C-alpha cells in the first residue's frame, strides 16, 4: 500500500503538485490519468525518489520513504522515455543492471517473449524507439518486486507487443502485485485498471472505480467521460 499525504512540488515558479492526497491499494492496478502537465510523472517520480518534493510525505507499507533509498528494491520502474547510454550493447546493459542490482530472475524469459534475441548484440543507440521500449520493459520486469510503476509503457510499441505487455501486466497482478500505470490509451485503462485517479492541475480530481467516473459525468463510455471532465474545467 502506498499512502501519499499532502504532497507539494514546485519546479521553480511552476507548482506541479498542489497537495496530492491519495492511497494506492495493495494488489490493485491503478491508472493515473490527466492532461499533459497535470503532474502524473512528477507524482510517480516522487514515489521513486527521483524528484524531491517540497512538503508532504509518502508511506510505503507504513514507512516514510522520503530521503530513503533501500525501499527501491521493492519497486520496478518503467520510465516514460527510455533513455539509455547509447554506446552500450543491449546485453551489456542488461548484465550491468543485474550486476548493480542483484536478484534478476526473468530476463531470459522476457527476452524470449519480446523476441529481443537478434538485438542483443546491437548498440542501444541503433535501436528503434519500440525496441528500446521493449528493453526498458525487460529491465523493469526481470525483477520480482511487490510494486510496479509504469510511466507510459505503451509508447512506441506495436500491437503485438502491446498484447504481450497486457498479458505481462495481468500476470503480475495475478501474483498480487500493486501496479501504478499512466497512459493516454483509454481503452487500455478500461480493460486492465481496477481503480482510476484523475489528476488535474496538481490535485486529485477524481479517485475511484472506472464506473464511478462514468456515473459522475453521466457518460456511457470512459473516453467521453474524461472528455466531459476536461471540457468542464477547461472552459
Amino acid at each position, binding site marked *: 500500500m502506498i499512502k501519499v499525504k499532502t504532497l507539494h512540488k514546485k519546479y521553480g515558479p511552476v507548482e506541479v503538485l498542489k497537495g496530492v492526497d491519495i492511497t494506492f491499494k495493495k494488489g490493485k492496478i491503478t491508472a493515473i490519468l490527466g492532461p499533459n502537465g497535470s503532474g502524473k510523472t512528477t507524482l510517480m517520480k516522487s514515489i521513486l525518489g*527521483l*524528484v*524531491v518534493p517540497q512538503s508532504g510525505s509518502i508511506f510505503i507499507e507504513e514507512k516514510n520513504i522520503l530521503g530513503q533509498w533501500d525501499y527501491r528494491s521493492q519497486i520496478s520502474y518503467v520510465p516514460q522515455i527510455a533513455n539509455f547510454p547509447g554506446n552500450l550493447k543491449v546485453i551489456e546493459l542488461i548484465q550491468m543492471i543485474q550486476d548493480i542490482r542483484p536478484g534478476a530472475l526473468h530476463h531470459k524469459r522476457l527476452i524470449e517473449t519480446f523476441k529481443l534475441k537478434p538485438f542483443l548484440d546491437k548498440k542501444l543507440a541503433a535501436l528503434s524507439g519500440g525496441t528500446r521500449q521493449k528493453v526498458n520493459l525487460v529491465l523493469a520486469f526481470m525483477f520480482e518486486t511487490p510494486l510496479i510503476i509504469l510511466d507510459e509503457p505503451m509508447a512506441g510499441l506495436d500491437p503485438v507487443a502491446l498484447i504481450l505487455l497486457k498479458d505481462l501486466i495481468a500476470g503480475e497482478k495475478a501474483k498480487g502485485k500493486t501496479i501504478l500505470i499512466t497512459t493516454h490509451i483509454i481503452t487500455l485503462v478500461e480493460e486492465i485498471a481496477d481503480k482510476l485517479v484523475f489528476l488535474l492541475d496538481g490535485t486529485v480530481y477524481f479517485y475511484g472505480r472506472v464506473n464511478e467516473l462514468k456515473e459522475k459525468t453521466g457518460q456511457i463510455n470512459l473516453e467521453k467521460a474524461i472528455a466531459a471532465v476536461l471540457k468542464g474545467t477547461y472552459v
Partner: protein
Amino acid sequence: MFKILKYSFMDLMRSRWSYVYFLFYLVLGFVLFFLNSNTTKAVITLMNVIILLTPLIGTIFGVMYFYSSREFTELLLAQPLKRSTIFAGQYLGVSFSLSMSLVFGIGIPFVLYGIFTSSAIWDFTTLLFIGAFLTFIFVALSFNIALLFNDKIKGFGFSILLWLFLAVVYDGLFLLSLLIFDDYPLDKLALGATLFNPIDLSRILILLKLDISALLGYTGAVFQKFFGTPLGMMVSFALLSVWVILPVVIMLFQTRKKDF
C-alpha cells in the same frame, strides 16, 4: 560504489577521447626527449603544460561526462542505490580514468628515457601527483557546475569560465594588485592569494621542488621559506586535498536536493 566506478571508468576507457588524451601526453613526452634528453628540463616544460592542461581537460571531461551520462544516471537512480553512491562512483570513475591517461601517457616516455636512474625522479613523481590532484579538483568543480545548470550550454560556459578565471585571470588580478600596492609589504598577501588558487599552488610547489625559485625574485625567497620547509609542503598538500574534498562534499550535498 565500486560497481558504479567500474562502469563509469569502463565507459570512459571505451571513448575515443581518453585515447586522444593519452596519446597527446605520450607524443608530448617523446617529442620533449627528442628535442633534448635532459630529464630536468623536460620536467619543467611538462609542468607548464600539465598545470594548464589537466584543469582544462578535467573541467571539459567532467561537464561532458555528466551531461552525456544523464540517461545512465536516471536509470541508476531508479535502482536501490544511494544518491551519494551513484555520484561519488561516477566522479571517481572520471577522475581515475583521466589520471590514468596522464600517468601512463607521460610515464611511458620518461621510463623509456631512464627516469628511474635520473635524479629528477622525485620532481617527476611530484609533477604526476600534482597533475592527478588538479584532475580530481577540476572534475569535482565541473560536476558541481553541471549539477547547478540543467542547460548544457550554460554548464559548459560556466566551467570554461571557471578554468579561465583560475588559470589566467586570477594571475592577472594578482599581478595587478602587486603593482598597485607596491609600497606595502606584500609577501603575506602573495602567499595567501597563492593558497586560494589550486593552479597557482601547484605551480609554486613544483617550481620550489625544482629549486628554480630564484627565478621568482623576492617573493620566491618568501615562498622558499614557507613552502621549502616540510611544514610548508605538508600545508600545501593538505590544501590541495581540501580543494578536492570541499567540492566533492558540496557536490554530494547538491545531489541530495536535485530533481531528475
